[in-house]
Structures are given as C-alpha cells and as structure tokens.
C-alpha cells in the first residue's frame, strides 16, 4: 500500500469520524481492498477505535478485507435476474474456478462476487466483468466470456 495515496484520501478529513465510510470507499476504489495497516492509520487519524473501524469494514458489502484478483467478475442476484436464471451463472463460474462467491482464484486472476441487485433488472441476468456490464447472460455466454479473458491474459503474458 502506498502511504501517499492514503494521505491523499485522508486529506481534509482528519478527526472527522463521520467521514469513516466515505474514506473506506475511497480506499476500496484505490487499493481494491482494505489493507489492515491502512485501517490502523485511518483509525488513528480519525480518532475512532480500531475495533469500530473493523466493525464498519466488516458490516458493509462494498468492502473487501482481502486483496482481489486482476479481474473482478460480479454476478447480479437480484430477483429479476434470479427468475431468469442467475443462480446457474453463479454455478458456472464457481464450477469453472472451483471457488465460492467472495473468493479469489489461487493465481489471483479472478475474484468472484455476488451482488444483490445492480438495478439493471430489465436486461437480466447481468454479469459485470471489470466494470463492463453484460446483459441477457446465460451460462454458455459466460463460459465463453471467461475463456476469452483467459486467452487475452495468456497472450499478454506471452508477448
């Protein structure tokens, strides 16, 4: 973790406990997870007990306490996506990588997340790969999408 980046996030927010969630959001955006040493610094600068910072970090789903993979694959599990087959999507990925939602593959290539609704219900089921939304997904389409990313990565690796 680069301390200068955390300093930038904390700028103007010292000793302001009401800014805790906002700061953790920025940290999550910046580092893609909440590093423990960073949380200690946040606690100290805001004047909030470290255990309180940990409670908040644990409570909200937007925060991850472990590093994420290079690619983030999120499957929407909203009601509309559910009735159109989202559980099958989750199974496909979980089966393909042999990981559960919230986990990262051992090679740190993919992190699989489930989200309770992205509000794109009308075009579901929806999967989001690295901030790109994919509508009307099916297990087959998702399977191909993952394969394509793998292929891209290995081409990059060989180049």
């Amino acid at each position: 973790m680069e301390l200068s980046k955390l300093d930038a996030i904390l700028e103007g927010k010292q000793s302001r406990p009401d800014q805790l969630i906002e700061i953790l959001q920025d940290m999550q955006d910046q580092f893609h997870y909440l590093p423990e040493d960073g949380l200690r610094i946040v606690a100290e600068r805001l004047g909030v007990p470290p255990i309180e910072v940990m409670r908040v970090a644990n409570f909200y789903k937007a925060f991850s306490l472990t590093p994420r993979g290079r690619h983030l694959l999120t499957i929407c599990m909203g009601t509309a996506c559910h009735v159109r087959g989202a559980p099958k999507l989750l199974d496909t990925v979980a089966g393909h990588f042999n990981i559960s939602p919230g986990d990262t593959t051992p090679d740190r290539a993919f992190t699989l997340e489930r989200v309770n609704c992205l509000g794109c219900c009308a075009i579901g089921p929806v999967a989001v790969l690295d901030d790109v939304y994919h509508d009307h997904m099916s297990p087959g389409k998702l399977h191909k999408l993952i394969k394509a990313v793998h292929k891209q990565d290995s081409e990059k690796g060989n180049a």
Partner: protein
Amino acid sequence: MRKIESPEQLASLRGGLRRKRQEQPVTVIVSSGTCGQARGSLGVVDAFHRELDKQGLSGKVTLRVTGCHGFCEQEPLTIIEPNSIFYCRLKSDDVPKIVSETLIKHRVLDEFLYTDPVSGKKVIHEGDIPFYRAQDRVLLGQNKLVDPCKIEDYIAIGGYTAMAKVLTSINPEEVIAEIKASGLRGRGGGGFPTARKWETCRRAPATPKFVICNADEGDPGAFMNRSVLEGNPHSVLEGMIIGAYVIGAEQGFIYVRTEYPLAVEHSRIAIEQAREYGLLGKNILGSGFSFDMRVVRGAGAFVSGESTALMAALEGKLGEPRPKDVHTVEKGYGNLPSNLNNVETWSSVPFIINNGSAWFSAKGTTKSPGTKVFALTGKVKNTGLVEVALDTPLKTILYDIGGGAIDDKEIKAVQVGGPSGGCIPAKLFDLPVDFEALSEAGAMIGSGGMVVMDEGTCMVDVARYFLEFLQDESCGKCVPCRLGIDRMLEIVTDITMGRATEKQLSLLEELGETIALSSLCGLGKTAPNPVLTTLRYFRTEYEAHVRERRCPAGVCRDLIHYTIDPEKCTGCQVCLHSCPHGAITGEKKKPHTINEKMCSRCGICKEECKFDAVIVG
C-alpha cells in the same frame, strides 16, 4: 457562468435557452442510462458525433445524451425530434445510415423501427408504442428532454420555477397546505403522508435541521430511483430545496447506493452546477434562504435504506436501525430533526407546486393519488420502467404495457414490492396498484419492483430466494429477524430439497407471523411476506414438493434430473465441450450420456444443444 440572483434573472436565462432550442429543433436523443450503456449506447453516441461531423450536420443537429427512457428491453434507442421517430436496438454501425437517410433525406427506416409483438406492426412514433401509450409519464417523461449533466437543459424546460416561486412568494405553511391537498404519500414504500412528515419536522424545536434523499434503493428488482437520479437529478435537487425551505434546513444529503456509479456521478455533477449558478449556497435567488447539500455513498447494506439505519450510516457508523419511539423527524442525523424522503417523493414536489395540488390528486385514487413508477421485469415481453396513476389495474400494466409473458406462456404471478412485498396470483390481476389494495392482498407497493413469473418459475424457489436475501442482509440486531429468518430459510430449503414434512409447513407459517409481529424495524416486520403470500396463494406447489417430492416448475435442483435423449442426440460433442463440470461423456457421432453425480444442473448443455436432446425431468 454568472450566478443567478433573482427569479427575474432565472426567467431571462430560461428565455434565452428556450430560444436556442427553438432555433435548432432537430435533435437526436440517445438514451444512455446504465441499461443503455450495458447494451452499447455509448458506442452509438460516439458514432453520432462522428457521423454528424462527417456528413456536415454538426451545428445543425443537436445530439442529446439522456438518462433512461424506461424501455430497457429495446436499448440502445434513439428518438429523433421534432417528429419523435423512435429507433431501437441500434448498433453503432447503423448510425451512418440513420444520419444520411433520416436526418438528411427525411426517410424513415423500417429496419430500426419497433415492432409491436402483439399486432406484428411497425411503429414509427414513440407515443404510438403500446408500452408508452398506456402510461402517464409525469416524472419519467422529462428524462428525454434533459441531458442530466447540463443544468441548462433542466432550466430550459422550466426547471427551478417551482423553487423560485416558493422561495420568493409562498410561505412554508402554504407549501405544506398545498402538498397536503395533493395527498402525496411517500414513494419509498411505506406511503406515509409527505405533508405530515414535513409539518412535524418543521415544528421540531431543535436546530439545525436536515433534509435527506433516500436513494439507497436496495430492493432487488427496483431501479426507478436510479433512473430518476441518473436521468433527471435536478428535479430531485429542486424538490429537496423546496422541502428544506419549508422545514428550515440548511444542509441536505443524497444517500445513494454505491452500486449505482452513474447515479452518484450525475448527482454530484448536478449539485456542482446548481452551486455554480447560485441555486445552492448562500441567499438563493436573493431570497435570504441558504441551503447546500452533498452526496453520500451507501456501502452495500440493504438495511441501511431504513430511516434510522440510514442516518447512522450518514454519521459514518454501522448502518443498523434503532427503535422508533422517537422519530427521525425529531431526532435523526446527529440527533437533530431530519426529514427523509425517497427520490420519487422529492422529484414529485416541483410538479405539484407548478401544476397545483388538484392536478396531482386528480390522478389515482382518493387515498393514493398521483402516479408511481414501477420496475416491470422478469418473464414479461416489454421490460422497463412504467409510470402509471395509482388506480391502474395490474392487468393493464402486465398485458397492455408489458405485452404479456415471454414465449406466450401464462403469467402465473407477479411479485410486487421486493423482499417486503408479496406474490400476487393471476386471479387477482384486476386489483388496482394503490397502497391499500396491495396491502390487503398481502403484498405492498414497497419500492415498486414488479417481477413477473410464469409457469417456469417455482414459487417455493422464489420464497427461498427472498429468505436467502433477507438472511444475508439482516443486520442481526434483533433476535426475531436474525434467528427467525434463519429457521424459515432452513425449512424452505428442506422443502426445495424434497426432505420436508407436513408439520414444517405449519411451523413455517407460525414463524412468519411471529417475526412479523416482533421484529425491530420495518424490514424484519415485512420479511415473511414473500413466504406468507406464496403459502396463501400457491400452497399446492409447496405440497407437491413435500408430498410428492416433485417441483412442478422444474426448477428445484434436487428434484430434477438432466438426461440426454439418445434418439435426438447426434453425438456432435458440443455439450461435452461446454460442460464446466466434465459430466458428459460419449464418442463422436454416438449418443452422449450425463453422469448424474457430476452434473450440477447448470443447464449449459441444454442451452448449447441444437437438437433439443437434453431433457429436464
């Protein structure tokens, strides 16, 4: 940009902006909310920029990138004004032709027109499309008129007029009286009278006071708040400024969930622009009233949409509810009087001030006046956002607007109101969608999600889905919700796995009723609704799972099997290669088989098979 210091200056700015619009009436409107972007609208926008330039039309045609028009199923879509020609399901490659043919030669291109699935006919104009025709689009109708990132667009269509009128010529009591006469009720689900909330908050003695917009739309299956904030954020700002003036607040918050990045961005831009014009800040329009606001992002907790929990989250704390013996209008954010309303409620306010309370209360029923936006999704032909008066029958929404079920199956039920709502069976589709009628049927308007279910949807599986969601999202503070939902989920899971007993069915009902009576907050109190309504209307489905170990809809995995029909299988090996679990074996050109122990019932083989050889039974 010069600050606007009086209502007269605002009016003169508006006059100038309007003249500009009239001078250049040809406008290409591209819908580009989250749904549109997911389907490639940004590529279409880029293509229009390029082509207008290339074909010599830049400066002659206005390109307006707007929020969502509600017809998500047909995205990316574009409307060409002044004639409202509606083109849908566009790709960026289609754009050069649209520019050369429609914009230059004034020819309507059949290939991009919408085809009505019922009559099979092509429709040219937006207003003639059945999906739009049966709606009353008060809030959503503005989305196509404004680029959400340009405050000038909102001012041009009359934006901030209501605010100017209120700040300079109406006193707070008169505003409350007007809202009371309109009968406006909270659009976040509870349906509490807005005027009464404002009045109590205004009378609360402590200061400072706060106004808050609840855009933590956590209900799965609802996205109307996202659409309004993405597409017309200034309408929310205007409503909030009026509310703040009435209540006497100087600071406001928009609490929006982080899962809506575009809504966060557009609200931030809107606040920034309003500030630059002096519509937020000190001494707004020279009225002596000062008010400012900021956006706070939610961090992914369903319970944080509950008013007391939301205010805790605003303070940077754990978003857990507290007992409501003292209401948030008296002790809310920072223990000070705070008025929380939903996005739709706030954005309805300028309309009521501009058009009068009688105009609003003429729509809907006496107890539930006005229009409400519903998110129509699931197994229905036309999915999207639908705005109707609150006396509209469900069947109008499902069949006239929604076009009926996909693949001409039968609609079995519609789930209204998300995890707090319930499933309404087809025999009750004559019910109007007002607050009371839906509550009596065991559902509730909730945030307004409507998920359509057909014969291929298992109602027990739907109940299990909501319980799983609620168990995951329960904050755990009170025992009935934390442990009760856990036990309900266990029972329903047993049912879906075919290992439940009859006794468990009655225990499930009893548990549900107890949780509803004894939970701390509204979310716990309404949590059993999805189970209780499915038990009430679809008991035979539960019984089939329990008595016959059978899932009539063919959904519950432990009760179904995938096999390959050797007569139909050609041995093409497509399924074998696509199975992520390696459960299919077979030689080329010979019938394949599925190893049931390895099969996860994901359905990829069925989807991939071109010969319809995979059987689910």
